[in-house]
């Protein structure tokens, strides 16, 4: 059995966008939230998380703002842009198609 934190290629973007749908968050919180919601199955490595955040920001799907965090320190909060919402819908639909397809193959056998 592989490591539980192995993420299917390209799904990290979807996870980040989905996580940011409700409220702006900083990097640490995004990682924690994904871990929590997935029932501790998915652990996002910092080595993947931050490059991904920066890439999404460059593409205009999320935007960042420095604000005070819950502990009173300055932190970089990411939030979803309008374009990001559209992208989220597209990637969600994609994922549904893909997982259904994989599911079909896996359960068939």
């Amino acid at each position, binding site marked *: 059995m592989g490591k539980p934190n192995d993420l299917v290629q390209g799904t990290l973007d979807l996870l980040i966008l989905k996580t940011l749908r409700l409220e702006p968050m*900083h*990097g*640490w919180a995004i990682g924690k939230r994904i871990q929590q919601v997935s029932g501790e199955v998915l652990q996002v*490595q*910092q*080595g993947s998380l*931050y*490059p*991904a*955040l*920066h*890439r999404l*920001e*460059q*593409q*205009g799907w999320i*935007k960042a703002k*420095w604000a005070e*965090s819950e*502990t009173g*320190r*300055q*932190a*970089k909060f990411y939030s979803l*842009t*309008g*374009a990001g919402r559209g992208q989220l819908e597209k990637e969600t639909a994609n994922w549904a198609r893909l997982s259904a397809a994989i599911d079909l193959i896996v359960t068939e056998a």
Partner: protein
Amino acid sequence: MRWFAQLQMRIQMLVRRTAAMVRLDDELRFHVDHQIEENIAAGMSQEEAHYAAMRVFGNPALLRDQAHSAWSWTSLELLLRDVRYAVRTLIRTPGFSLISVAVMSLCIGATTSLFTVVRSVLLRPLPFRDPGHLVMLYEHFRDSRSNQEGFNYNTVAPADYSDWRAQTHGFEDMAAIRYWQFNLTGERGELPEEVKARGGSWNLFPMLGVPAAIGRTFTESEDRLDGTAVMLTWNLFERRFAGDASIVGRQVHLDGKPYTVVGVLPQWFTYPDAKVQLWVPYLSGLPPDIVPHHDYHFSTVVARLRPDVSLARALSQVEAVQYRLHSENLHAPVAEDVAPRSINDDLARDVKKPLLILMCAVACMLLIGCLNVANLLVARGAARQRETAIRGALGAQRWTLIRGQLTESLLICLAGGGGGVLLSLAATQWMASTWKDLPNAVGIHVDGVVLGFACALVFLAALLAGLLPAISSTGKAVFATLQAASRTTSGNLSRATLRKTLLTVEIAVTVVLLIGAGLLLRSFVRLRSTDLGCVTGNVLTLDLSLPAQKYGSPEKVNAFNEALLEKLRALPGARAVALGSSLPGEGYGGDDVFTIKEHPPLKPGELLPDALIRMAEPGYFSALQIPLLTGRFFTSDDRLDHAGKIIISDRLARQFFPGENPVGKTIHVPAYKDADYEIVGVVGDTLWQVGKPVEPTMYWPILEGSLVRGISLAIRTDSDPLAISVPVQRQIAALDPALPVSDVLTLQQAIGDSLGNASFSAKLVLAFASLSLLLAAVGLFGVLSYLVAQRTSEIGIRVALGAQREQVLRLVLLDGLRPALFGLVFGLAASMGAARLIQSMLYGTKPLDPSVFAAVSATLLLVAAVACAVPAWRASRLDPMQALRME
């Protein structure tokens, strides 16, 4: 609006990059701190928590790089880094950098200048309406004599032109242009000036799409024999009439006749060349008997193709008409065919081939320059081998290393390109003003396209010079350096081979250039020293024209000519004076067909014999020292109605009177007064133009009195002929103060002018070849010095073991001369091919001229030996103790 957000992001990432780096660090530290807090909450000590957090976090530098690489402009950042690095390395070796930049400036500058000229002259469409559909039409004779020089575009007879225009439909329109020259004076006859002019049919300007800048162009009704409309070019309008637009509608005097200025041509219009000062309608001023002729060739024809008709189809119609005209005019010189020519080629005439050859020469020089820089870069690569190896071992990818080196050569070429463009600004100007035969010289300047070309050259040169050294110095073998003991030289052997190969190519190309230059130069020297058939030393020449109004009768013309001769012959310092229609070496002065009364009539289909025509006064031949072979010269009795005499040249006598005495025979010239002329003498041949074969020539007595335009004078003197020019002009002014005098030159200058083309291209190619030779010598010197430095310890051991100085000298010398020899052999082989390409430009010189090949080989070997001698000498003087301690 996502693109806008992206753009904003990009700009922000570009201008606030450093701030973004700090922010990224903050962000990552925030994350780690959170992790530490979490760890402490889980019960770890401060220190433990810190280490655990760092452990989970991984390599912060790598993470930073990864996040960083997600930003835009990464490639720009890399480029900047490469550039910074390259600049630093270049500054560290200023000598190398300066030499390379100078070499590239020279090569790119020369190539850019030549491209500028080639583009303006050969490539840029003329600024006419839809120039792609314009084509020049010429007559084309089939006989072998017309085709012997490979150039067969005969000017068109007026009646041919009018038949073509009336009887064919493939062309939208056709217009005719003829040469003309006028003595221009004002309304009151002030300030005479000899101006070059053209006669253009009324439809010419509308067809070309050239509107008048002021006034209008010619109307159909003005294009008639007694038409007196004239158009000024902008140049004349500004210069002579101070740009005063009220000149339109007023009169000027041409050859004493009043003409009405109907318009001024736009400033940009300098067709066919900038020397043309004014235009008259095509027919205006033509002798009436010439117009219906099919064998008076003096016009060029421009035609505009109909867009829906192919050139071949349109042309076949014209050819059909022409062939019918040929058949209808038995024996007369009416061409069989019609030859089309692009309007650009037509303007470029004699300069196209020299231009292309110069372009090739300059491209060779650029190649040599690139090879030289490549060679220098290989040497540097060798010196920096260890550094490259260490960078590679530390994880630099091969592409990164290659990119670094390419950046260096790109920087060199960019600096060279900048210098080159500056250089070419000056060089282009110089060429346009020095090269007299260049058409469209005003339009030659550096513009956007040329700059684009220069940029392309820079990148090409950078690739050419940088890629090979970069690839060779970053290969796998590089890592061997790290393992190798410091004394071995084996790692460098392949590099030395590469350098020698580059050098061989460089020398081979140099040899080709040198041979080309040698052949052109030799041919030019041959041209200079051609025997014209008459005296050329200490001869002053000048031209004048008598206004037809004032000199209306043969008696008046003769009176002037004889008075002038008498005055000039009496001048102190003048040994002899010749007066004629043209002088030897001064070019074509018209030709005519003739028949020989005493000979049987021509066979059907045979063309009438043809000869150049000249007019001469009795003293012409003896003054110019043209020898009399049989018979007599003209006398002053051969005048007016008694002028039915003719003198023929030796060539004409040999060709048309083989084995008989021509004196006393009768020549009939149908075109010239349809009269009979008795041959009274045979004189030696003279060349009508240096570099052209001797043509049969007929001389008429000038005292028959009809020649008023284009009188040539030659005054032979004891000493410097130019010293007598002012007294001569004073004598002319004393006879008629309104006569303009033109082309006051020594005969040698006049001939030199006609050789301008040959001399210019020969000198330029020689300059390029010399520079290439210098570059090759520098390359040879560099390679050998490098090799000697590499082998210092080896030579030291040899000397320590007892090798003689001479042996060492020979060893190194041979090492350097080997690539030179190989290059020479390859170069000579390639030259044999290249020489054939320039064969048509050579005069009296075989393309495989052994003396040129020998001279080039000797020069090259000599230069190579000198370049090798210094390093070889240094090697032989090596102190073995020092050499062995060096490492």
